[in-house]
């Protein structure tokens, strides 16, 4: 297990260590830490190059030291200076031969080890590649480190690389301004900036590039905008690639979604671009006019979320799909279409006139009982008669009722004529 500190002692310590011994310790602390080894006692039979007995300290295959001796002044004595491992592991190998010269017994060693934080920011891990741990700002932490970026840059997914912040992203406001990084100064190289303008459906984006437009323009083998370009993509349309010094000016995209991609490679020079975008509501066309009716409100153009009403002229009725409707209202939808098709105004009719008992009706003008048709009621004379008049004219009114000139819709009754026989005896009888 990884531990933060510990003690290592030679076999039998504090008694003299045995001969012919080979003991090995593999020390390990958590990643991000080094091991600091400090001897608080060291007494191993001194010899040239620690030939007989020795304590070898290794970091992997690298030998950090081979120690023996009794006093710090001895040639291979580790002294009081701690030994620091390059990484989070360390190996100690204690080896003794099978004979000890003279009566003097050696007690071996006792050492204390502890985890020491690695400052990754100042001392890169040797086994790693030679790049610094952070491309811009390195912050050491206990057992690890963090990278940060300067203002205007963003840390990439690798956690160490900073790239220029394009100011890209999604623009949802109804209008706004975008420009390339550093505009109007020279754009950084190696850019791949993506800008998405995405407003709600029912609105269309118009791009208005400023006059000051400059993207390196290089032709090669029929291709243009080879290394630097601005790509404007509208869903459902062919992407448009721009470079050069001529501003694209105003672009009506006809869409609520527009993507701009600005690319520069590692060479060349572009000053970039700037634009102001606006949005307009989608227009719904009125494909036909309403005969015998009118659309309200009367606007030259209708846009998303506009409502229209259709009202028929007096004497006409609203018809849609062969059925009469009481009223009509339609809304301009986000797709530029009305949510209901326009109705028709058809002339209304009053239906067949009610029959008149002991009388009749005939048409004076108009047809099909239509609005403003005129009919005339009469009684079957001489046996029936109206009380006050000879005949009564009715006109098909806007309320679909047959009405007389005085606006009365009641058909007068035919009253029997009394006492007037067709043969009058009094005229010839004497």
């Amino acid at each position, binding site marked *: 297990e990884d531990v933060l500190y510990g003690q290592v002692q030679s076999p039998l310590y504090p008694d003299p260590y045995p001969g012919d011994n080979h003991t090995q310790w593999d020390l390990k602390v958590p990643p991000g830490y080094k091991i600091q080894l400090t001897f608080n006692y060291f007494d191993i039979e001194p010899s040239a190059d620690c030939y007989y007995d020795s304590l070898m300290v290794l970091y992997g295959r690298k030998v950090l030291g081979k120690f023996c001796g009794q006093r710090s002044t001895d040639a291979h004595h580790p002294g009081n200076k701690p030994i620091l491992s390059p990484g989070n592991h360390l190996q100690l190998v204690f080896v003794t031969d099978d004979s000890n010269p003279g009566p003097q017994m050696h007690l071996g060693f006792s050492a204390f080890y502890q985890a020491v934080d690695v400052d990754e920011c100042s001392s890169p891990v040797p086994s790693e590649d030679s790049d610094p741990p952070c491309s811009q700002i390195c912050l050491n932490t206990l057992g690890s480190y963090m990278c940060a970026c300067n203002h205007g840059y963003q840390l990439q997914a690798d956690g160490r690389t900073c790239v220029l912040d394009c100011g890209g992203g999604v623009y949802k406001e109804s209008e706004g301004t975008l420009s390339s990084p550093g505009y109007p100064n020279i754009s950084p190289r190696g850019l791949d900036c993506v800008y998405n303008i995405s407003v709600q459906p029912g609105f269309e984006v118009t791009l208005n590039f400023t006059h000051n437009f400059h993207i390196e323009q290089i032709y090669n083998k029929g291709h243009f905008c080879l290394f630097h370009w601005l790509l404007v993509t509208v869903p459902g349309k062919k992407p448009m690639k721009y470079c050069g010094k001529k501003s694209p000016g105003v672009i009506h995209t006809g869409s609520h979604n527009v993507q701009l991609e600005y690319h520069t490679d590692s060479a060349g020079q572009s000053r970039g671009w700037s634009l102001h975008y606006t949005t307009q509501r989608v227009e719904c066309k009125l494909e036909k006019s309403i005969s015998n009716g009118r659309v309200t409100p009367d606007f030259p153009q209708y846009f998303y979320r506009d409502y229209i009403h259709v009202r028929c002229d007096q004497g006409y009725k609203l018809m849609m799909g062969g059925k009469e409707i009481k009223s009509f209202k339609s809304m301009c939808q986000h797709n530029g279409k009305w949510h209901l098709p326009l109705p028709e105004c058809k002339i209304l009719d009053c239906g067949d006139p009610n029959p008149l008992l002991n009388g009749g009706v005939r048409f004076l003008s108009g047809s099909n009982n239509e609005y403003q048709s005129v009919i005339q009621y009469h009684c079957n004379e001489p*046996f029936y008669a109206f009380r006050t008049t000879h005949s009564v004219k009715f006109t098909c009114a806007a309320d679909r009722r047959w009405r007389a000139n005085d606006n009365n819709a009641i058909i007068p009754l035919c009253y*029997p004529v*009394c*006492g*007037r*026989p*067709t*043969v*009058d*005896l009094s005229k010839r009888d004497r």
Partner: protein
Amino acid sequence: VLGGKTAPANSFPWQVFLRSGGRGGASIIGDRWLMTAAHNLEHVKFAQEKVQVYVGNIHVSELVKSPSLAIASLHVHPGYKNNNLRTNFDNDIALIKLNSPITFNMNVMPVCLPERDTELNGTGLVSGFGLTEDSLTADTLRYIRLPVVEQDKCHRSIETERKNRHDVAPLTGNMFCAGLPEGGKDTCSGDSGSAFVMKDDETYWVAGIVSWGVDCGQPGKYGIYTRVAKYLNWIQKTMDEN
């Protein structure tokens, strides 16, 4: 009708041929209403199912070929008293309501009702299918022109009869008389209920209903008619309520 003439077709389009135990007449006063003498209905004890009415022709033989008009109800004047003995003809008026309205034409037409409080002067026409001077009932409608007799004169005539005969009904203000002092022209049995009409300008209106009389066509005796103008309120009320 004694001493009269055959009525031309369509000359009395309001004439109704009524059968209710015996022959009688009535007149059309509305598309659902007929007017007759109450005593006509007494023959069948006012049972509407025993009453038959026909319109639209001057020949009885033709009239009866068609079914009777369906009767909805009979309405006898409440002032008409039981008159089995024929001693009281006061309020001799009744209305007959039909099930369905009649459509009028030259053969069938209502007669007008009188104005309120109309004074009866001059002559009138009376038609009927009753007895003729040959004591035969007429197949063809007959008519006669008769003058209205002054009420006092008629009253005296009736009172004279009442002194001689105990079964003569009194003359009331609801009646008027028409006829000639010399006799010979009169209505008679079978004419009861028919209309005595008078004319204003171009319009005939019913002044009386053939009601009763002592004998027929005798000198000094007149026919007695129900004075319709006296019953306008009752007629209107009866129609409104039914």
